[in-house]
């Protein structure tokens, strides 16, 4: 039997007082352990297809960068994320890429991780304003932007104003909250009227469908557009509209997954706002490499959102998830 492996890198080398990882001083640090660079991907939930796909991207690019990658799942419970970061510290990980259920809840853990010399990267999500110092970088698109894009598209598409309903994701989840806030903040003082807005109990298309059906009863033909927080939920909305014989409603979904693409191609969904996880992952890996080498890096790397409509759908590779 083996004796326990060497004590975690962070544990040994991080005296309590040390401040802030990710600077030049730490450059040599992670590589010391038989050259293995361990990167953790901490995600809200692997039951969520987008996150499961993002994880495949981590695995795909890990070899190119010489990383070993592991995934941790929060299962939509921030406590699990905190526990995962603890494990990463114990195991001496080099870097963490995290897409947390609740970013603000992670700040204390980020402090610890940095104390232990671990590179902390936000992935597809940003920390609350004013807390930027607790993470080393952020890659991807924030869900808030998805909401903004949805609102902007509506403004372009309906310059004379439009009546829209919003079908939210699971109540209380960061994606739902940000996609909502981005949208609501942007349409303020515009000629877009938000007729009604409701969240789901879970990320379940039947929930979205039920809400949409009730919207149809309540508002009927007034509804000109639907903003649904995720493409699979949009499927439910589309089914509800189909059943009600309302074919000309402008449906917006977020995710850019294959379901969304299909619907855009079929013409039932007008717009899917996609995120390129492969790009995001590469950006994150680039940043980690740069930080390890002590090179300059961009603290925030925005990944462009894919605006997938019938006209642009062929510009993007068909998503693998």
């Amino acid at each position, binding site marked *: 039997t083996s004796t326990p492996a060497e004590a975690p890198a962070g544990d040994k080398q991080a005296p309590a007082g040390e401040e802030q990882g990710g600077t030049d001083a730490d450059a040599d640090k992670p590589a010391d352990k038989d050259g293995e660079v361990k990167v953790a991907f901490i995600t809200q939930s*692997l*039951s969520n297809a987008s996150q499961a796909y993002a994880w495949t991207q981590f695995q795909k690019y890990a070899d190119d960068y010489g990383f070993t990658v592991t995934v941790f799942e929060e299962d939509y419970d921030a406590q699990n994320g905190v526990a995962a970061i603890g494990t990463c510290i114990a195991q001496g990980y080099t870097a963490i890429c995290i897409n947390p259920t609740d970013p603000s809840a992670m700040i204390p853990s980020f402090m610890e991780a940095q104390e232990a010399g671990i590179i902390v990267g936000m992935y597809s999500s940003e920390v609350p304003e004013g807390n930027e110092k607790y993470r080393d970088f952020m890659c991807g698109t924030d869900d808030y932007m998805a909401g903004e894009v949805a609102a902007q598209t509506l403004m372009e598409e309906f310059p004379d104003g439009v009546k829209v309903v919003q079908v939210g994701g699971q109540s209380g989840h960061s994606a739902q909250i940000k996609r909502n806030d981005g949208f609501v903040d942007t349409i303020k003082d515009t000629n877009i009227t938000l007729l009604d807005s*409701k969240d789901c109990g*879970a990320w379940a298309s039947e929930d979205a469908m039920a809400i949409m059906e009730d919207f149809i009863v309540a508002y009927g033909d007034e509804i000109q557009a639907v903003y649904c927080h995720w493409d699979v939920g949009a499927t439910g909305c589309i*089914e509800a509209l189909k059943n009600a014989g309302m074919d000309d409603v402008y449906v917006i979904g977020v995710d850019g997954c294959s379901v969304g693409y299909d619907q855009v191609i079929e013409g039932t969904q007008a717009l899917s706002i996609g995120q390129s996880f492969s790009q995001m992952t590469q950006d994150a890996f680039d940043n980690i490499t740069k930080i390890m080498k002590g090179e300059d890096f961009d603290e925030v790397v925005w990944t462009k959102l894919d605006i997938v409509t019938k006209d642009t759908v062929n510009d993007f590779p068909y998503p693998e998830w």
Partner: protein
Amino acid sequence: MKRDISARFTRSLRNNLVLVGIIALIVVTAIIEPKFISSANLTNVMRQLWPLPFIALGMTFVIIGGFIDLSVVGMISLSGVVAASLINPLGQVGAILSGILLGGMMGYLNGFVLTTVGAMIQAEVLFITFGMSSIYTAIALLLTNAETLRIARSTKPYNIFTALGSGTVGMIPVVLIVFLVILVIMHLFYKKTLAGRSISLMGGNKEAAFLTGYNVKRSMRLVYTISGIMSGMGAVSLVSRVTTATATSGIGYETNAILCVVVGGTSLKGGKGSVIRTMLGVLLVVLLGNCMNLLGLSTFMQTVMRGAVLVIAIWLDNRREL
């Protein structure tokens, strides 16, 4: 004499609280929001029901038998995923049948595990089925990698699914007709057959049933199998309705189904209950959601209301027996 009539009235009122609740709900909502009683909304409600009635139907048998089944979450998820993914290899009929069959098998497995380890009280059963649910969900996740399966992607025809999901005969959804047939069958099964009777005997008093020559363990496996089959059917109706399947689609149905059964007046102590009353419970719960949506109540308030209804329903049910 007058006292007698009024006493009888209060008693029947108390015994039919669900009906009273439903009527009150309809009247109040109709006054505030006239759209509620429009035909569009009626169709709407008839569509929104699914798959809850199936799940609640299965759960009724488990609860009448004196147990509880939290594994419906996993069973719905796995059955749904399997049914959706088998359309291509097996064709739609095969897919539907295998979804239902798989549900039955999982249910039987639950019953088998429970009788083998001798879990005979509700609390033991509660946690073991909870664990089984995790197992089924995990398998569904492993099969799909959490991806959403769309039946529209299948190369084989899937018109039965479409018919179940959104087809109507006149105003009545196809799935409702299918369900009513099943409901009648299950009602007759419960009322008329020996197997049905032995379920409620088991729920009423396991020891007495055992001493009178009933095979309690077999009845136990039976109720779980029924719950499994109903979860399978529910999963198929769910997949048809939303045209997608995911490995987590069963979440929340366990509490909702228990809510419907209890609100319908089937006692958690087991032994007595009614399949039809459960349907009233389903109706009340779904109408409540629908009303709150139409009245513009926030999602949050709806959660509060559901919890309050559950607590009050159980409390009243309990008082009725005191």
